């Protein structure tokens, strides 16, 4: 899923400093699961904004709403009936949700209330970690199910580099070296011979380098 993390309150306060009436909009998708932008976080952020503004003697009116998803027009429609009564929206959906809302409602600013960090997993309660960079050209079958684009700080195709020490990445002793993981799993599976071959130069045109990506499925279009 998409993992995000709340922006510092000061940043959000700065965004809405000129506004008196805003909507704080959450999303029940990924950001609910990673506790960054669901109904609960809408409540927490709204309360914090309210409190801070009251302290400054500059109260703000906040409409709290949490949509099923902000990446679908059908759910974004649900704010149409009241959005015109407000001066701005703080969306705490992922970056896609914030943008889709901004595309649909162009009259008022839509501010991001969280940072969208990565596509990842819940390693344990309260710990999320990146697993995919959406390069558009999955190579996991070569690398024991561990992504070198994501889990190597240099996205090397033929690692590990000379900085790999005792399983850790040169960049940070807290980070596991992705190539050590690849080595370990292939060794366990008796497939180390896979690493004798050079994984060729990548085609990054399927990644962000090729420009904004789009998938069109004619069979599904209405």
């Amino acid at each position, binding site marked *: 899923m998409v993992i995000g993390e709340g922006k510092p309150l000061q940043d959000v306060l700065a965004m809405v400093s000129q506004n008196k009436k805003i909507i704080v909009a959450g999303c029940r998708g990924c950001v609910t699961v990673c506790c960054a932008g669901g109904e609960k976080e809408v409540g927490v952020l709204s309360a914090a904004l309210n409190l801070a503004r009251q302290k400054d003697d500059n109260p703000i009116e906040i409409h709290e709403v949490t949509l099923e998803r902000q990446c679908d027009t059908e759910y974004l429609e649900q704010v149409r009936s009241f959005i015109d009564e407000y001066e701005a929206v703080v969306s705490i959906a992922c970056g896609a949700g914030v943008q889709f809302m901004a595309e649909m409602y162009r009259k008022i600013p839509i501010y991001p209330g969280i940072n969208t960090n990565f596509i990842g997993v819940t390693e344990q309660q309260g710990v999320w970690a990146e697993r995919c960079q959406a390069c558009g050209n999955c190579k996991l079958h070569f690398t024991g199910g561990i992504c070198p684009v994501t889990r190597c700080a*240099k*996205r090397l195709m033929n690692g590990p580099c000379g*900085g790999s020490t005792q399983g*850790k990445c*040169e960049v940070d002793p807290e980070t596991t070296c992705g190539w050590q993981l690849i080595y370990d799993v292939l060794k366990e599976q008796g497939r180390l011979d896979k690493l*004798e071959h*050079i994984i060729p*130069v990548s085609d990054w045109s399927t990644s962000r380098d090729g420009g904004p990506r789009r998938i069109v499925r004619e069979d599904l279009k209405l």
Partner: protein
Amino acid sequence: MTSDSRLEKILEEGHFAVTSECGPPRGVGPEVIQKKGEILKGVVDSVNVTDNQTSVVRMSSWSAGVLLKQMGINPVYQMVTRDRNRIAIQSDILGAASLGINTILCLSGDHQKFGDHEAAANVYDLDSIHLIQTVKLMRDDKKFLGGDELKGEPRMFIGAAANPFADPFEFRVVRLAKKINAGAQFIQTQCIFNIERFKKWMEMVRDRGLHEKAHILGGVTPLKSIGMAKYIKNMVPGMDVPDELIERIKGVEKEKRAEEGIKICIETIQQVREIEGVHGVHIMAIEWEEMVPRIADEAGLLPRPAAQ
């Protein structure tokens, strides 16, 4: 011969090669590099010019290489894949070759986290093995990575690095084999402090016959002080400084520790030279270039042969 590289000639003629390196300045002054060149000229066969090492911005490696070239020194153009994509890489290779650079060392480079521009994007369009393949493709097949033919191929002697001290240990030789298969003709290793581990690695190298496919140059670095030894041991990833070595330096008086470091370095060179399959040494005297002539002399590496 695949190039006009002095290093290639020395190695192909069967001499025990000696290389060293110098870091370009953090400014425009050519005199910094020229001064280092003066020290190293005639003492080593080739001088590596580092490419923004540890991700700290410096004068470009090819331009500092040209400055050395003008002094009659054979520069080894170090190129990392951290900062440029395949377009810039191939363009720089053409430019360097047109300016007379004929020896290249292909590296992935330290992560920018170590340097003075931590906020920089890293490129890593290619990795070091792809870079080796790219230079070889341009030189031997006269082609760009994109498939087009190039006019006037860069005749480069191709090198790569190997770190026998990184992990996983058993895989280091496999990775070396990949580099050699990709086209690496000479290999410079990371600094050897743990000679036993290096010997074990060389044994694995010989088991695969890799010492006959590429020239291996063992890397050595004189330790100036206990502080430096500890820093390398604890702070530089992929380095192995055994405690005995630190104890040995500790064992002498403070003023004599640098001297002890030099002595250890000379001994390491002599030990490395005895190992079957090692064809040279790469002396990395970090900001201590003035010691290289003495090390080379006392290790019995002088005078250098006049390869033509």
